[in-house]
């Protein structure tokens, strides 16, 4: 028991670091046109963006809260601070980042990862990026990796305007509209035609302020024949008040290009994670989603792929771990909008200590998508009788020339497997953790080694104390 306590304390504290609030600017809580205009002014928006924000706010006020997912009654927008500017501007040298913020990210291993295994890193603290850097040799290839605000005022301004919230319009749902109104921070990545970025880029999002929201926007354009692996990480310390994450990710994958987008989400368990991710894939292109959802109090997360071009492909590999007090509604969506497109969705979910895990998906095969194939596989593991695990897939096929398969299973850890491992010297707790790690293997093997280790550590941490 003593060991359990020590391990839990040591590991959790990495994510639970709370910095003293020394923000340079913090907007009043709530959501009004005046506050949105204030954010726009703070961010020095171009006129079109200011109008876009106000229009989005109007849409937000008109749309209803979703009635089909987990309850978000505990989220009161009147109490959410939508913009918190940290006490620094964006740096390109790690040594220039203020000491307290730097320490937080160093504990999370961000600069170490950059040195060892990344081509570039962006680090967002509350509403703004505090650090952004890309290796010179990658920049020399013409790869742009910067914060969205800078890009909006520079040579890529027209490109941003052409793509910003075109895949996820504010009318998509209430929290997409909210994002359109108060977005701040995030990254812009542009990979030119034929360029292959061999080592990943990473953005890490850290929310420190209690009662605040984070609304970063990630826009990635991968041109024809290019390749990119982008990693997104996120965490926050736990507070007694609700925090909100309503980010937005828009991915444009060009002809014959490939984009892999990996996420390990470990928000604190007071977080409402209402995130929207979407990819548009052109002819012969491919988007690969790798998604680990471990944190948050409530999550709505369903990365969507629109297979627009002939032969476009999508793969989604995901794992969701819902523990005590968590209601994680996750899954994937795909639209086959062109011939010979293919999609493969493979997910695992684990529910424990009263946690609720829901796999939700939609596969739509349009009339024109002749020759398309789709396969969905989801497996759920129930670790106790207090938890809940639901599987809610939907398939809509509009052409005879399609091949769509779906399979799902739900069950518990077999007693035989535990007995087998215990007979070889493992404690029951370690045996269960071992089986759960194996269950999650489909995701961990898709991640770079460092992230796979982090994910396995998270699983082990969640599994500690699972007996009795």
């Amino acid at each position: 028991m003593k060991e359990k306590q020590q391990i839990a304390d040591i590991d959790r504290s990495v994510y639970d670091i709370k910095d003293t609030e020394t923000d340079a600017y913090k907007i009043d809580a709530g959501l009004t046109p005046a506050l949105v205009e204030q954010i726009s002014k703070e961010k020095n928006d171009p006129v079109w963006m200011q109008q876009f924000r106000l229009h989005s706010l109007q849409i937000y006020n008109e749309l209803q809260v979703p009635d089909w997912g987990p309850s978000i009654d505990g989220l009161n927008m009147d109490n959410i601070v939508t913009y918190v500017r940290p006490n620094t501007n964006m740096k390109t040298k790690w040594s220039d980042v203020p000491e307290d913020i730097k320490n937080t990210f160093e504990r999370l291993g961000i600069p170490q990862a950059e040195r060892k295994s990344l081509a570039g890193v962006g680090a967002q603290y509350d509403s703004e990026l505090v650090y952004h850097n890309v290796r010179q040799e990658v920049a020399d290839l013409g790869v742009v990796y910067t914060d969205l605000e800078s890009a909006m005022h520079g040579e890529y301004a027209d490109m941003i305007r052409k793509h910003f919230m075109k895949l996820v319009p504010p009318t998509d749902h209430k929290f997409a509209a909210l994002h359109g109104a108060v977005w701040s921070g995030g990254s812009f990545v542009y990979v030119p035609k034929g360029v292959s970025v061999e080592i990943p880029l990473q953005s890490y999002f850290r929310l420190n302020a209690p009662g605040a929201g984070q609304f970063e926007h990630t826009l990635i354009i991968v041109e024809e024949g290019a390749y990119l692996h982008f990693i997104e990480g996120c965490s926050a310390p736990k507070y007694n008040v609700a925090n909100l994450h309503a980010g937005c990710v828009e991915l444009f994958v060009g002809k014959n290009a490939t984009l892999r987008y990996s996420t390990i989400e470990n928000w604190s368990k007071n977080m409402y994670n209402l995130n929207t991710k979407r990819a548009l894939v052109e002819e012969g292109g491919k988007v690969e989603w790798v998604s680990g959802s471990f944190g948050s109090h409530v999550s709505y997360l369903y990365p969507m792929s629109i297979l627009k071009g002939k032969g476009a492909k999508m793969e989604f590999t995901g794992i969701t771990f819902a523990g005590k007090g968590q209601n994680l509604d996750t899954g994937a969506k795909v639209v086959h909008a062109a011939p010979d497109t293919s999609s493969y969705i493979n997910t695992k979910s684990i529910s424990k200590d009263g946690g609720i895990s829901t796999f939700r998906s939609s596969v739509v095969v349009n009339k024109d998508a002749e020759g398309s194939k789709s396969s969905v596989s989801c497996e759920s593991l129930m670790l106790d009788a207090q938890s809940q695990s639901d599987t809610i897939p939907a398939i809509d096929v509009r052409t005879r020339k399609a091949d769509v398969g779906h399979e799902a299973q739900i069950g518990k850890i077999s007693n035989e497997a535990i007995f087998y491992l215990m007979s070889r010297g493992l404690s029951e707790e370690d045996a269960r953790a071992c089986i759960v790690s194996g269950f999650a293997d489909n995701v961990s093997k898709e991640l770079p080694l460092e992230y796979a280790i982090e994910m396995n550590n998270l699983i082990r941490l969640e599994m500690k104390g699972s007996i009795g």
Partner: protein
Amino acid sequence: MMENNTIRVNALPTLTWHRLHVNACKTEPYTPVKPCTVQTVSENGVAAVSALEPCTDCSAVETGVGRNVDNLFQWGMTVTVPENGSDTLRMEIGSEDGGDCAAFVHVQAEAGSELTLVQIWKADASHAALRTVIRAEAGATVRLVQILADASAECINDVGCVTGEKTSFEVIRLYLAQGNVISGIRTDLAGNGSSFTCKSGYLVKPSKKLDMNVIANHIGKNTQSDIQADGTLYDGAEKAFRGTIDLKRGCAGSEGKEEENVLLLGDDVVNKTIPLILCTEEDVKGSHGASIGELEQGMLFYFEARGISKSEAEKIVAKARLEKLCQETADEKAAEYMHRKIEEVI
């Protein structure tokens, strides 16, 4: 619930994205002017069958289509199979003078009884609705065979069942209807060790719609459910299949599975498949699978190598999927009737 002069029926037990239009089926409400005629023949004379008469409680058991059609069922009859009794009942459901009609059949299968209930739809009306609710007491076995090959423009086939301990509820349904069909079935596996199997075969003709909702609620311990649907959609046909296995807290040792195979034979088809598993119990197993598409290439090659054309091969496979149901129907007369209807249609 009324929305823009439509009612929601066949609703999923839990919602998903509204823009997919799969959460429920919307249909226009109507008021039946007469009861459907229900001609009943008992093979052994064991079951007591009442006459159709105005009924006051047609919603004693929750059903698959749901409460929004409660008002349709103003006339009902009761079938009672006494304790340890055994009988086969054949019902023909028709419409007098072709008017819109509805009927409610309440089956009480007492402990240890065995009932095979064959319902053949022969109504020819704009609207015909039948609700069958079954209470199966401990140790009872109820087999329900439903054959819809009628000419009604729209049929509603609504079933609800509550099972007692160690009861068995077996359903076989064949849909070859000329019109649109809304079909819902809900079984509450309340008794420990009870089981529910539901095997449906369908063939949806051009420009017709079939909307199915099958719900298996596992409440008692060691309960079993097996939901299967196999069918074919012709050009312009539309079908939705909602299948739910709900493994409720306390149903330890239970297992539910569901499978749907859809053969698409025409352009402009709309196939919606929504197979749900809801689970709040640890010691259970649940699984579902679905395959949707045209004739598999390997199978087509097999046929063509034997001189069978693609269109002929498609007919053979479509027919085989339905004929399977005949083999699984214990009642020979019903199986023979099903076989004849399949021959007529394909």
